[in-house]
């Protein structure tokens, strides 16, 4: 019993340790890594990953998975761009409408998973492919140009020296933390991953909560898609390809159990930075895209291995 109470902080320290080692390593082997410019650059690069990871955390906590996040990012990218250019909508309504589209995708995912009972992996795999195709259809496979300049602020702006997306990411993390830890829905989400039937017998409509997490995940991925759109100021249909891989890696690295029910957003934030630093460092080291994929795959495998080993030790 005593060991168990010690286990959790050790796990958190382990993530922090990995982060420090990575920072130390890249600071030594590259010159430009530990400069204010690059640190802020990394933060801005990971902001979309971070925002989406908050939603993914909610899903994985209920023991689900959402691999459609990358395609949601892609379709919001194009939908947002088309609304602002082809349909000439002002920025704010266009952005809101894009987010509604994203949330609607999540609603469909959630209904299939919780009410119809299709496994989350299959539902979101189908959605991932379907949305990507739809994205290409919507824009004829071509980039969408001509976005209003004022839209750049979302992805490229600064408050002081802090990039706007970084501020948004931290706000989402704070809201996410409060939501998961201080609201009843948040506590239901934690309960669902541990023990679905016990939550239902406590008098909670579990299917609604389960649907809700997919809406949250899609909504936040949609927000990430909008930020991406603003950063490159062009609608690109291939945006977000393989993004789900980074998001899931970050969440699992952050110590969220794939079986659900355990993990915290503080860990996830660290996981996000580890994933981001790894990508950034590999680019600085000029490692080829091919090798980067191999390394990323290994990192995810390693992270879930630790998760599974920890679980086996407990039982």
């Amino acid at each position, binding site marked *: 019993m005593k060991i168990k109470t010690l286990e959790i902080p050790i796990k958190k320290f382990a993530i922090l340790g990995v982060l420090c080692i990575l920072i130390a390593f890249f600071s030594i082997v590259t010159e430009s890594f530990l400069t204010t410019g690059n640190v802020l650059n990394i933060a801005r690069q990971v902001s979309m990953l971070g925002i989406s990871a908050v939603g993914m955390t909610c899903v994985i906590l209920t023991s689900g998975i959402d691999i459609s996040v990358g395609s949601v990012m892609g379709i919001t990218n194009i939908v947002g761009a088309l609304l602002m250019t082809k349909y000439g909508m002002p920025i704010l309504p266009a952005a809101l409408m894009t987010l509604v589209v994203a949330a609607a995708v999540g609603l469909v995912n959630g209904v299939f998973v919780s009410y119809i009972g299709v496994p989350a992996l299959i539902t979101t795999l189908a959605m991932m492919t379907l949305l990507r195709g739809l994205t290409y259809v919507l824009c004829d496979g071509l980039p969408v140009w001509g976005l209003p300049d004022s839209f750049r602020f979302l992805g490229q702006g600064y408050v002081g020296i802090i990039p706007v997306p970084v501020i948004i990411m931290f706000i989402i993390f704070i809201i996410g933390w409060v939501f998961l830890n201080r609201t009843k829905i948040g506590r239901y989400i934690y309960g669902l991953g*541990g023990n679905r039937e016990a939550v239902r017998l406590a008098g909670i409509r579990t299917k609604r909560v389960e649907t809700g997490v997919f809406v949250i995940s899609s909504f936040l991925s949609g927000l990430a898609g909008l930020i991406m759109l603003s950063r490159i100021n062009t609608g690109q249909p291939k945006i977000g390809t393989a993004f789900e891989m980074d998001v899931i890696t970050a969440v699992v690295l952050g110590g969220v159990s794939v079986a659900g029910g355990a993990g915290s957003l503080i860990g996830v934030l660290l996981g996000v930075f580890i994933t981001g630093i790894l990508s950034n460092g590999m680019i600085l080291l000029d490692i080829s895209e091919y090798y980067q994929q191999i390394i990323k795959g290994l990192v995810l495998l390693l992270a879930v291995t630790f998760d599974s080993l920890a679980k086996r030790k407990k039982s």
Partner: protein
Amino acid sequence: MEKQEILLSAQGIVKRYPGVVALDHVDLDFYKGEIHAICGENGAGKSTFIKVLTGAIQPDAGRIEMEGIHRDNYTPHEAMFNYGISAIYQEFYLIPALTIAENLFLGKEIMKNRLLDRKTMNSEAKALLLSLGVDLDPNRPVGSLSVAYQQIVEIAKSTYQNAKLIIMDEPSAPLTINEVDKLFNLVHTLKAKGITVIYISHRLTEIFELSDRVTVFRDGKKIVTMPTSSTTKNELIHIMVNRELSDTFPTRKGEIAEPILEVKNLSTAALLQDISFTLHKGEVLGFGGLVGAGRTELARAIYGADPITEGTILIKGKEMRIRHPKEAVAQRIGLIPEDRKQHGILSRLSVGENIAYSSFSKISRFCLIQMSLMNQSALKMVKMLRIITPNTHKRVQELSGGNQQKVVLARWLVSDCEIILFDEPTRGIDVGAKQEIYELIFELAAQGKAIILISSEMNELLGMSDRILVMHEGVITGELSRAEATQDKVLRLASGE
């Protein structure tokens, strides 16, 4: 009677689990080609004994001889393939998508030129089934068969594996009356082939119809083995339950008042048929019966956890449709489930959160849970129910079983529940904590709460209930007042006698 040859002999079998002796020096011999019935109450040690024989668990002490040879530390696989001991459980280990023949020969396929020899397998399967008195097409997928025929395939599979001893655990439970006849014929065929059958059943009528000898287990001990023809049902029941009522129960206070819950003609698709009863304020209504009698199902149906196909539920005289546990909680009904770890507590959450889990809305402001309010109300409950925990932030999984059970109860008390359904509330809980739970139940009744107590422990049922309803196979078979209830009467009703 001619002298019988012993097939399997178990001597001095002991199995201990933390806090209980599941098997206490059991000596038992089985003859070649006999039908040997084993009976006893829930938890008497029958299942543990069977698991020892099949090698599923290892005994702490004792000796098993099969055909005169000492065997120990064997696995179920060795038991089945090397010694010829096989068991037919209530769940079958058949693969529904494969045919009867494929299932029979699974792992021992007949090959011809490195390919499956379907023709030979089918004809052998057909012959095997015919020798057991059943004519089935061996090409049919097992999934398309009724439960009875699946059971026959399972039995055929063990005879094909040269079983000398076949153990059947409640084999008639899932069968209809006609199918039970078929099963009996099959058991007699097995006997004629010289196979020993151990037949475990709660149904005493079957034991008398079928078995040559009968053994009674009680509280982990073998009480007696005797020829079935030399005993009677009444004697068997008496032996099964004959024990001193050792636990002392607190004194009952308070009065039974007006009806609060009326169940009328309730049925479910799976099991329950035409259940009607009334529960009063301040009453402890006990539900007795054997495992699978439908008591848990009844509690779940009332609570909206499983759908009701027919019947009505009245709460305080008003008809209510409860389709989800949430609606039950809104009607101030709380359920304390049988499986505490899987269905009761949320093991990874804190004591405080577990207590507040069904009433978060009450302690939230602007959607945010007020942590101070949550801890205050949890602390109040911790004191009132004497939950032993250093603080309310402790994860509930680190508490003892009795304290976890109190946490689940506390959840319903903070939700102001007036009807509380206790399903086996003291299972797996130590003696001291049991006493406390009993006291709490009486305290709640004295406060005017209405209580349903499902219990398989005879002492508890008799000692706690104001009234006892006994169920058997989804039906209420009788009602006993506190004054008239005895162990014999409850068991008789529970066996459907």
